[in-house]
């Protein structure tokens, strides 16, 4: 977290931000003494581009959004659900209006319906060994095209650099200004920086509250086996 804070301080100083922002953890930044939730995924470039593709008219007639995310054992699958539900709404630009969930221990499958009848499927599990990077895929299917963050005919994402030497390594660098951080850490720093901008705190707090309500609906559905209307 120290490294991330240093990068955040670098940005706030470089761009003359007066507010003092302190990263509390990967999901929270403290601004003016208040805990502000971070939606770091919204700052991942892939989701910004998917959002632009969906909402900018590149795709026409959206039908389905499919999400799969596998994380390491011990992770909170409902915290992952919080993230993925937000990504669905963020990318689609539509609210979710219904949720049906099926849970088996650390695995969770959902069908959520969005405005205009769009159907979202979310497949979440916490089954990877400790330290294994998360595997995920986000795909939007429309009458005129498909957008996805995984290349066609592949199961996993590519990295930018592969080094085959005495020790095999791979690298994915996506931000010159914040060079050296992982894509996920860059998104955390960028989202904390964004939270310092005027007017965003209340918006983030409201979004957090609505998402928590959605996740609660999913919990109820998983327990009762019934579809929940939002």
């Amino acid at each position: 977290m120290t490294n991330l804070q240093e990068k955040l301080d670098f940005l706030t100083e470089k761009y003359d931000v007066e507010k003092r922002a302190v990263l509390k953890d990967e999901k929270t930044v403290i601004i003016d003494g208040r805990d502000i939730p971070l939606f770091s995924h919204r700052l991942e470039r892939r989701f910004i581009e998917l959002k632009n593709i969906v909402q900018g008219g590149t795709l026409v007639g959206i039908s389905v959004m499919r999400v799969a995310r596998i994380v390491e054992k011990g992770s909170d699958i409902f915290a992952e659900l919080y993230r993925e539900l937000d990504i669905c709404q963020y990318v689609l630009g539509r609210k979710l209006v219904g949720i049906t969930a099926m849970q088996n221990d650390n695995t969770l499958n959902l069908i959520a319906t969005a405005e205009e009848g769009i159907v979202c499927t979310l497949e979440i599990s916490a089954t990877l060994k400790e330290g294994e990077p998360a595997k995920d895929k986000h795909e939007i299917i429309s009458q005129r095209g498909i957008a996805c963050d995984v290349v066609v005919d592949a199961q996993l994402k590519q990295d930018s650099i592969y080094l085959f030497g005495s020790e095999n390594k791979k690298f994915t660098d996506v931000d010159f200004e914040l060079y050296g951080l992982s894509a996920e850490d860059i998104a955390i720093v960028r989202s904390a920086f964004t939270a310092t901008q005027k007017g965003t705190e209340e918006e983030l707090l409201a979004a957090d509250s609505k998402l928590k309500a959605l996740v609660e609906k999913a919990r109820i559905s998983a327990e009762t086996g019934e579809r929940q209307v939002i």
Partner: protein
Amino acid sequence: MKPLKIAMMSMTHGHTRKYYQTLKDNPKLDWVAVATANEEVKEIFLNSVQGIPCYDSEIEMLDAHPEIEAVVLASENSEHLRQMKLCAERGIHILSMKVPTFDMDEYDEMIDVIEKKGLVCQVELEMHYNPVIVRMKELLLKGEIGKIKSFNATNITLSPVWAFPWQGVPEKSYGKRVPIKEGDPRFRGGALCDHPHIFDMIRHMTGSDFESIYAEVAPNIRPDIEEEDMLSVIGRMKDGTVFSLDPSWSKMEERIKVPGPGWEVFPKRMEVNITINGEKGTLMADCFGPNVYHNGCPNDRYTVQYTYFDEWIGLIDEFVDNIRNSKTPLINLKWHKRTIEAMNAVYESIATGKVVKL
């Protein structure tokens, strides 16, 4: 072993052409004849295969070739019961397409007809003869990921309705015209009816059966067809495994009449991917590949060119073995019945908006 004298009927099913090579090459088979359902499929057949007698009538073919021991029913779903009865009357063994029927009374009648005559009726679910599936099953049996927690799979393709028009006709695909849900202009009989494999595979992999199913139909990506083309399914098996299945026609196609190069609009025409999460880890599989890629003729589009396995070789080998050695097929009518019941439950869930218990 004496080669099995085999014939094909109708030739209207999308899998028809998959049999050409196997029926010609397999030394255990003697391909005797075909009966085509109409002039269009007759022409396609005659342009594809030479030297096999082709009849306009099933009866004419069967009368002319009393030596026929088995028939591949390469027909639309609505024809299966009639053709099964026709074959059973003559003591002919049957290889059925992947959906015998969605009508459960008809389904029981099929079982009855086959059992009374002591015939082999094998259902064509070719994924069982796919080497990736064999490896996955082996890894599961070895306990590599421990007890299964969730099973998530896609069986997604382009829509075959332009090349195989019966699949776009609810009466021929689903067996009757049933609205998909109240207030929706679409009918049952679309993508779901084309994709039983993952409903079968989850039973094969878990050894369990369906406990509950919930499904939603999404807006069609082909608004001009009258059946569903996009749907999502979740549920739970009796052993607790939760699942998510996508049996959609989510890959867009050119509307050509004979499948071939240039069919794809989306670069990849078909995918069966399975992710199984277990108590000790995760298993991810792409059942078809690795592939090669090109952007050549006819449309200059980047395209995934499959390096297909031939599941039909293993399927036919088993079929011959079942007949010659009086064995029950791995995928027999009784086994497959529960898969069809689950698919019917998908439609029921879409219609009612509720979780359906099986």
